[in-house]
Each structure stands twice: as structure tokens, then as C-alpha cells.
């Protein structure tokens, strides 16, 4: 029973990692950049939700979906702005230049929020009234239903967009072969912009959900969560969308289990243990294939 309880807790946490990991993997897939500012977009998502929730405290069923959508919209604009200002000018430069810039953007965003809103922990308003049920000794709160539920919904929407829409096909084409995509008439700049917008919106959703599930936010919350989500993306196979979702869930469960079975001081260490094991055993990740070229 205890085990099942921990798995349920782990799935909630893992859903959040999964949403962040999706953005990492999508951006990597299309521009081969590990966007280290991605965790800070997640932080920004939580702060946008915090600011809106405090303005509109009216209790309605629409409060949560509206805040979620507003935060996702805000962060997709933020993501596109970051791409335009920081990464696009470096598009054809060595990758290390963009990577360094990403770390710079990350530091900038953290300190921007620190100066504008404050360095302290803030309590996240209760935008979903918490209740919980007890079934055969297992406690499940409505939050533990909402968080994975939203994640599943968003992953399904993402799957539809990537596989059924023109923009999604363009994304897959650009990520597979940018030059040939251009030869087919795909506007690569737009496609990259859309990818950043979608990835950032998913990170924002993760930021709102984490605020609901673990109601405490601070300007540096994106660093550790971002790193763990990055490891999740590598675990699933970087650049592979279903891999990121799977990796995120596994990471959440692994973290909760490590705390349960060993010690809560291992909470953050487990991510890096996973990273080291993946890199040693299967560097392409769980769903990754060994790259081979047909000539």
C-alpha cells in the first residue's frame, strides 16, 4: 500500500517533469540546442500564474483553466522573444555560443524576477480548492488527479499538433533535415519560433501545476527542476517527444522512491545517478535508436 501511495505521488511529480522535458526535447530536436533557460521559463510560468491569481481571487470553476491558459500564453510569448533576441542571431554559429547564451538567459531571467518581484519564497494561492479521498488506506487528493490529468491532456494535444497539423509536419521535417525542409517550402524561422512557443507553453503549464501541487515558488525554482527535466529528456532519448514524457514520469517516481527507500537527502542526487547510468548504459536513451546513415 505504501508503495502504491508513493507511485501515485511520483506520478504527480513526474507529470511536471514530463511537461518541462517536452520543451527541452522539442527545442533540441529542432535547433540542436540544450536550452538551459527552459527551467526559468517554467519559473516564469509559475510567477505569471501567481500574479494573475492574486488579482482575480473570484472563486469560479473557470479560475484554474483561465490562469493556466494565460500563463501558457504569456510564456509562449516569452519563449519566442528569447529565441528572437538571444538564439536567432547565433543560428549559424558554433553550438557552444548558443549554449553559453542559454545559460546567460537563464541567469538574466532569475535575476529579473528576483529584482522585480523579490528573492523570497512565495506562497502560491490555492486556485484549486484541495480535497482528498481515502480509498483502502491510500490518500489521493484532487490535485493528484488534476496534475497528471492536465499533463495527459496536453500531451495528447501536442501529439495531435505534431502529427496532424501542417505546423507539426514542418517541425518534424525541420528537425530531421533543415535544408530539405526549406526545399519543400517550409519557413524554417517560423517553424523554430512555433517550437519555442509550444515548448514554453508546456513549461508554463508545469509551472502552474507545480504551484498547485507544491505551493511554494521562488526565482530559482527552475534550476533544479530544469536539470531534472533535462535528465528526463536524456533518459527518454533527447529529441524524441514520447521519450520525454516517459522519462519525466520515471524521474518523478524514481525521486519519490529514493526518498522513501533511502533518505530525503537523496532527493536531488537521484536525477544525476539516473543521468550517469543512462550515459553509461544507453546514451541514446530508452526510446533512442543508434544513429545510422544509409548511403
Amino acid at each position, binding site marked *: 500500500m505504501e508503495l502504491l501511495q508513493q507511485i501515485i505521488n511520483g506520478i504527480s511529480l513526474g507529470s511536471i517533469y514530463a511537461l518541462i522535458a517536452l520543451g527541452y526535447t522539442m527545442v533540441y530536436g529542432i535547433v540542436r540546442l540544450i536550452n538551459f533557460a527552459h527551467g526559468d521559463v517554467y519559473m516564469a510560468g509559475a510567477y505569471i500564474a501567481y500574479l494573475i491569481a492574486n488579482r482575480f481571487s473570484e472563486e469560479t470553476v473557470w479560475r484554474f483553466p483561465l490562469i493556466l491558459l494565460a500563463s501558457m500564453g504569456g510564456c509562449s510569448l516569452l519563449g519566442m522573444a528569447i529565441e528572437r533576441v538571444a538564439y536567432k542571431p547565433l543560428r549559424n554559429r558554433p553550438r557552444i555560443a548558443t549554449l553559453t547564451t542559454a545559460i546567460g538567459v537563464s541567469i538574466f531571467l532569475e535575476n529579473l524576477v528576483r529584482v522585480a518581484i523579490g528573492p523570497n519564497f512565495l506562497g502560491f494561492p490555492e486556485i484549486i480548492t484541495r480535497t482528498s479521498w481515502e480509498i483502502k488506506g491510500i490518500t489521493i487528493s484532487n490535485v493528484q488527479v488534476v496534475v497528471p490529468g492536465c499533463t495527459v491532456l496536453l500531451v495528447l494535444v501536442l501529439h495531435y499538433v505534431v502529427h496532424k497539423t*501542417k505546423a507539426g*509536419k*514542418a517541425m*518534424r*521535417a525541420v528537425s*530531421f*533535415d533543415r*535544408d*530539405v*525542409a*526549406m*526545399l*519543400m*517550402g*517550409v*519557413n*524554417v524561422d517560423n517553424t523554430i519560433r512555433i517550437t519555442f512557443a509550444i515548448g514554453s507553453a508546456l513549461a508554463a503549464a508545469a509551472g502552474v501545476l507545480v504551484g498547485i501541487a507544491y505551493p511554494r515558488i521562488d526565482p530559482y525554482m527552475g534550476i533544479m527542476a530544469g536539470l531534472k527535466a533535462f535528465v528526463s529528456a536524456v533518459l527518454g532519448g533527447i529529441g524524441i517527444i514520447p521519450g520525454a514524457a516517459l522519462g519525466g514520469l520515471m524521474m518523478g517516481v524514481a525521486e519519490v522512491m529514493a526518498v522513501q527507500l533511502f533518505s530525503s537527502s537523496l532527493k536531488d542526487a537521484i536525477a544525476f545517478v539516473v543521468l550517469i547510468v543512462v550515459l553509461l548504459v544507453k546514451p541514446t536513451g530508452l526510446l533512442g535508436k543508434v544513429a545510422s546513415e*544509409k*548511403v
Partner: protein
Amino acid sequence: MLEVNDLHVYYGGIHALSGVSFKVEEGEIVTLIGANGAGKSTCLKAISGLIQPRSGCIRLKGQALMGIPAHKIAEAGVIHVPEGRRVFANMTVLENLEMGAFARSDRSGIEKDLREVFRRFPRLEERKYQLAGTLSGGEQQMLAIGRGLMARPKIMLLDEPSMGLSPILVREIFDIIKSINAAGTTVLLVEQNAYMALQTAKRAYVLETGFLTMEGPCDKLLADPKVRSAYLGE
């Protein structure tokens, strides 16, 4: 239809194309032959906008193409089928063909062209839900050409379509090129297989280390002793 004038392309310090000029008239098949590294692919990449020439002029029906982004050039009807097929291996055959029609929005026209491509390449219809990466080399080449046709090109730039194919398939590919041309598409063909290219095209240009050294009707070049010794192995 397509006019290239005094084209200069550099890769860093290397002068890859030195003042290349040629033209392709509407309805023609024109071939550009030459050895490995002569600059044939570079020519096509400059036309389709994948690389930026240092100077010169490229015009499609009088409209200047240079400096326009590659996706706009594709929209204008210049369709480049790249060397090595480069199909989207992670997409199905059908999705690859749909990618070919990416810049179009005339649904019924796309449907019609898709049926036409399947009529021309029945193997592709049999395999339309298969991932393109699982096709054989010849099938991938047909897919690459079919994908190009889905754009309804005004002019098709074909880069080494016969590369790596068996002699029977080579013949088949060149027959396909002729029939595509007969159906109204202008073709600029780049080939190392000079013999087949000269048999297929109407006019030819010979490229040597970035310079055009010869040009003329194909039957004339086929009889030229210099061409025979340098490119036809005599």
C-alpha cells in the same frame, strides 16, 4: 525559363564557381555534367537558395531569385531534388509526399497530383504507410522525385538521381525523367553518369573545377572527342 548569369560562389576561401552562365528554356531537359567536385551541386544549391552566391544573377522567368529565402524560391516553383535522395526517413511515404506539397493549399489539386504520383510509381502506393527509411535505394529515389512533383514544379532541379542505383534502375530513373519532362516540367539535370545524361537531355553544359568549359546540343557533345575521353571513358 531559368537564366544564370556570371555566378560566383565561394566556400570560405575556395572559389567553387567562377562566373558560370547558362540557361534553361521552357520545356527543355538541360544537363550539367562534370567530374566530382566540379561545382555541379553547388550550382543547384545556389539556384534553390541553400547557399548564397558572392555575385551574379539568377532569374526565373525574369524574376530575380538571388537573396530570396529558400522556401520562397520553392514556392515560386523551383524544386530541388537533392543529391542522396534525403527523404524524411522518420515519416511515412504518404507524409513525405504531403511534405512535397507543403507550400500548396489547393486541396483538390494536391489530391489529383497524389493520384498521378501513385500512377507513375505504383510501388509508392503499395508502401504509402511504410516509413520512408525502410525503402530501398531505388524506391527512395522515386519517392524523392515524387515528393518534388507534388510541389507542381515549374522547373525541377535533379541532383545525381542515378547515384548508387543498379544499371536497370538507372535506366528506369532516366525514363521517368523523360516522361516527367514530356508531361510539361522543365528539368535541369546534374549527373556524373555523363553518358545517360547526354542521352536523356537536349542540351548540355560541361563544368570543370568551377568553370563552364563546353556547351551545346547533346548529340554534338556525345560525338566530341574531348568529351568522349574525359567523361565517357574512351
